[in-house]
């Protein structure tokens, strides 16, 4: 039994303390958290449940509450298990590669040729042994995920295999395509930057 004393601590300190105690656990154990207000009880309960704990709480006095969290697994085990399960149910063909498409044609020179090339490029992506994690479309690239694009079938196929297809909302707006998006979801600059930042490798045609 590990005891966390968060008496006198205002939100969000009790959550922070409990979480730290959970992360420090090396074997399944029970955590006892003492707090002095109802809000802390609710917040700690939410956090513990979302971390896979079995939670009960009781009121000990006017300003004294006890939350008991039974963790049948420690956090690091839970994470390891999640990874294993992934491998078990479906061989994941996705790596942390991101494809970024910023135009509806590939390369500069002849536009007609550029359009043929980009279609070929997207088809070739579907044939990769290891699919990318996500494909980002922005600026002219937004036309490729919208009505009338020759690549919709390929992109839908990729999406069905778990590749995230994301198109920049501002760009859809700009080209008047917002109602015409036919595959994937709308994204914003934050997600674009975050996705790129977390990528192991970025491919740009």
């Amino acid at each position, binding site marked *: 039994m590990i005891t966390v004393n968060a008496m006198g601590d205002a939100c969000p300190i009790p959550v922070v303390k409990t979480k730290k105690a959970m992360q420090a656990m090396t074997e399944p154990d029970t955590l006892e958290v003492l707090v002095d207000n109802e809000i802390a009880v609710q*917040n700690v309960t939410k956090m513990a449940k979302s971390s896979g704990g079995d939670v009960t709480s009781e009121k000990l006095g006017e300003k004294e509450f006890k939350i008991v969290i039974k963790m049948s697994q420690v956090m690091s085990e839970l994470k390891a298990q999640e990874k294993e399960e992934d491998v078990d149910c479906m061989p994941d063909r996705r790596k942390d590669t991101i494809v970024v498409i910023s135009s509806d044609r590939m390369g500069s020179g002849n536009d007609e040729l550029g359009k043929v090339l980009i279609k070929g490029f997207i088809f070739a992506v579907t044939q990769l042994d290891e699919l990318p994690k996500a494909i980002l479309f922005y600026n002219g690239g937004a036309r490729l995920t919208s009505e009338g694009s020759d690549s919709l079938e390929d992109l839908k196929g990729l999406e069905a295999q778990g590749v995230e297809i994301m198109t920049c909302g501002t760009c859809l707006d700009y080209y008047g395509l917002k109602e015409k998006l036919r595959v994937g979801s709308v994204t914003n600059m934050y997600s674009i930057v975050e996705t790129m930042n977390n990528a192991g490798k970025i491919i740009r045609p």
Partner: protein
Amino acid sequence: MVGIETSDDAAIYKVTEDIAMIQTVDFFTPVVDDPYTFGQIAAANALSDVYAMGGEPKVALNIVGFPNCLDPEILGEILKGGADKVKEAGAVLVGGHSVQDDEPKYGLSVSGFVHPDKIFKNYGCRPGDVLILTKQIGSGIINTAVKAEMASALAERESAIVMASLNKKAKEALESYPVNACTDITGFGLLGHCMEMASASDVTMEIYVHDVAYMKEAADYAKMGLVPAGTYKNREHSIELVDAGNVDEYYLDLLYDPQTSGGLLFSLPEKYLSEALADLKEKKLDTEVSVIGRVTEKKEKFICLCP
């Protein structure tokens, strides 16, 4: 011209047949670490009350509390942030007042003008109206996560941008429409303010919970229990009058999350919706606009949450 009984956003004084003056004051303690951003947020928040009444801010005065022990340069940054927002609003900052205080505080007293027939009231929703929200919600939860040092840098930045952006463009986009009611979303959270509007208008609001734009990370942080105390108070205050259906717990936390300098909530007859959305789009807001629900005849509860 409007009484306190319907908890309107500011005081209004009719000067002539064509001019009404709006008077409001608001200030608070820092919600972000960066002093310049704090100044911007506090000013945007104070100016917002004028926009929520349909007015144009004209004159502003600083209100400052600041401790002796802190570097005066910090105060300079706060004031600069505030002054830049006032300028962006097209108003003039003409001075102010400061006192010594243990904790920094900053805000504005703002005077604005509006034509008496063009005032946005925070009651008057009619069945058949749609509800348009002009900023994504979640700033209270993100600010709590920032305090807990559990927020991502992106979440922190998105929340700062949302809080610091003026409600000017949103107000300008919709002022030519027959807006039945409008308010700004602040401390009572989205549902708290919806409740005020619905009860003062004696109607029921159907809120399409999953259409409400929110900051993505806020949902994760709500699940982790990074929920500010204000959320629980807001919820306790009105949950009896809400038909919550089987909406997930963390969604309720989001909907009751107290907002700092939140967006405007408009109640507008549905036939104007597509035109109004096009005008909002043209204004290129820095925040996300969402159509969050509609107004019906009064039913058993004032608010009905639909998945």
